[in-house]
């Protein structure tokens, strides 16, 4: 790591601060902070993450995003489709004319080139790759200078039970360090499982048992994780997955430092995530 004077650092941060990542859906993401997306399988975490990535890349032509796919569930086609949808809504394309289709292609290609995807085999692999993150920060081969603006990690729970706790802790602290060093927000999605107690099904203690079983999250990522997370968003689907093409999700936003909570309703669909109705 290079050393810089305090004045240099202030100057660097000021220039970055001017182009903060602003997203329509997620609350004001603070650079240098880590945001956790918690939710059960099928609650829309990966969709929300991908929407964030696509928005960031399509709204700012010089922003890059680093996407680390830890659970191997990234679908490139889905990502490409979302980028196309985003590009075509921001600049509508007339499919009959050749010129506008090439412009469309170029816009999509340029947006996709600024998303760097890493698929490590495990925690150790991810650490080795993150060691090289300096190369990814500035890309000199592009004409315009593009800078890393967002760090997204999908599926950190996939490391539990298979990788050493030490490696996981190291990875977690490295991610937080990257976020602070480059002054970018980091968003991490994590799967939550419900542990079912034996009497969940009985009608007698129904409510209590359900509440109890919901708060137990299988998969303790370690103390390092609890210290590193600044903000946590819990996603709870309100409609059954697969039974409707629109999914309503309640998002409970918790700021870990101040313990204050906010609630929002989001609608998650193939085309992205929109704010459905916000309640305070």
């Amino acid at each position, binding site marked *: 790591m290079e050393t810089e004077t305090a004045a240099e650092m202030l100057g660097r941060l000021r220039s970055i601060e001017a182009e903060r990542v602003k997203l329509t859906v997620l609350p004001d993401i603070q650079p240098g902070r880590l945001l956790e997306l918690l939710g059960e*399988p099928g609650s829309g975490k990966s969709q929300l993450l991908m929407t964030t990535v696509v928005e960031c890349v399509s709204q700012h032509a010089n922003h890059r995003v680093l996407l680390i796919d830890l659970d191997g569930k990234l679908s490139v*086609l889905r990502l490409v*489709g979302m980028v196309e949808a985003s590009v075509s809504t921001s600049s509508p394309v007339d499919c009959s004319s050749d010129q506008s289709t090439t412009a469309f292609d170029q816009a999509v*290609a340029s947006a996709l*080139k600024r998303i*760097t995807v890493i698929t490590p085999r495990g925690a150790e692999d991810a650490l080795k790759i993150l060691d090289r993150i300096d190369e990814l920060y500035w890309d000199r081969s592009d004409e315009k200078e593009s800078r890393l603006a967002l760090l997204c990690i999908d599926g950190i729970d996939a490391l539990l039970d298979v990788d050493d706790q030490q490696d996981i802790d190291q990875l977690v602290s490295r991610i937080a360090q990257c976020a602070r060093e480059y002054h970018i927000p980091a968003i991490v999605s994590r799967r939550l499982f*419900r542990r079912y107690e034996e009497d*969940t*099904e009985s009608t007698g203690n129904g409510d209590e048992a359900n509440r109890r079983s919901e708060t137990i999250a299988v998969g303790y990522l370690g103390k390092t994780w609890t210290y590193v997370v600044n903000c946590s968003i819990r996603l709870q689907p309100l409609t059954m997955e697969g039974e409707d093409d629109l999914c309503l999700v309640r998002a409970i936003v918790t700021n870990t430092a101040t313990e204050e909570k906010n609630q929002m309703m989001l609608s998650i669909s193939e085309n992205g995530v929109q704010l459905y109705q916000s309640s305070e």
Partner: protein
Amino acid sequence: MSDTGASYSNTPKEVENGWDLFRRLTNSLVIVPTGSASVDEATGGGLWAGEVTELVGELACGKTQLCMSTIVQMFLRDKGVRRSMAVYLDSNGSFRSSRLVEILRRKKPHVSDEEVSDLLSRVLVKRVSDDTELSKALLDVQKLCQHASILMLIVDSVGGCLSGTAAKMDANGRKCQKKIIRQLRLLAREHCMAVVTVNHLVYWTGKMRPALGQIWMSAPHTRLRFLREHDGHINVRLINSQRQQCYARSGECQLTESGVVDLPDFQPADATFNQSHLSHSTLLERIFAGDSQIS
């Protein structure tokens, strides 16, 4: 760091940008048709290489038959072109070479004996009974990939092999399942295989769900639910998919001597890659339509 403009090889790199990933996918997209165009429409063309597809359903509703049918389809398609092989990891004794031969003879009546033995030589079968054996077999498959081009890997049934891990779901069980998931995903992604796992249903928390618990629920990329209907037809419904929206995507097929086939009154859609499969990407449609302007 990948340099844009380099040749798009099939092997995935650790660090790639979205555009290179997309171009590599379009260059190396392999989809194995199942034998029934209706089911293929539901899944976007058939069984995709690079993905883990799970077939889930009750006893004797056609899951193994679909696997056999797909192996024969793969052979018929790739016969003169490349030597693509299939690996079948059998845990409940459901594999029958004679059934493969029967399907081939029905699909192609005047097939020669050489072709029959060619088909059988392309299928490697191994018996696995529990998770350690399965893990070891998957490692062997990984080593085998260096010498042979394996296109399909079928684990029949994964619900049987890993049943020991799901009983209590303690740390050991979770570790075991996650290791197997990692191995399967590695084989699918880095060695471009269509990995198929066969699972059964269990009654859990109020309804029938795929066996092996919550961790396994999100293990495969795509999940197909088989349902045998009253008139003997089989409804294959897409219930989980990473790639596309699964709302109301299903296909109907029936089991005959020639494997899994469409119902007699089935009307196929116009193009092989029509909008409903690749509802996401207009670029992808244009690439497959032969638009060469995209660099």
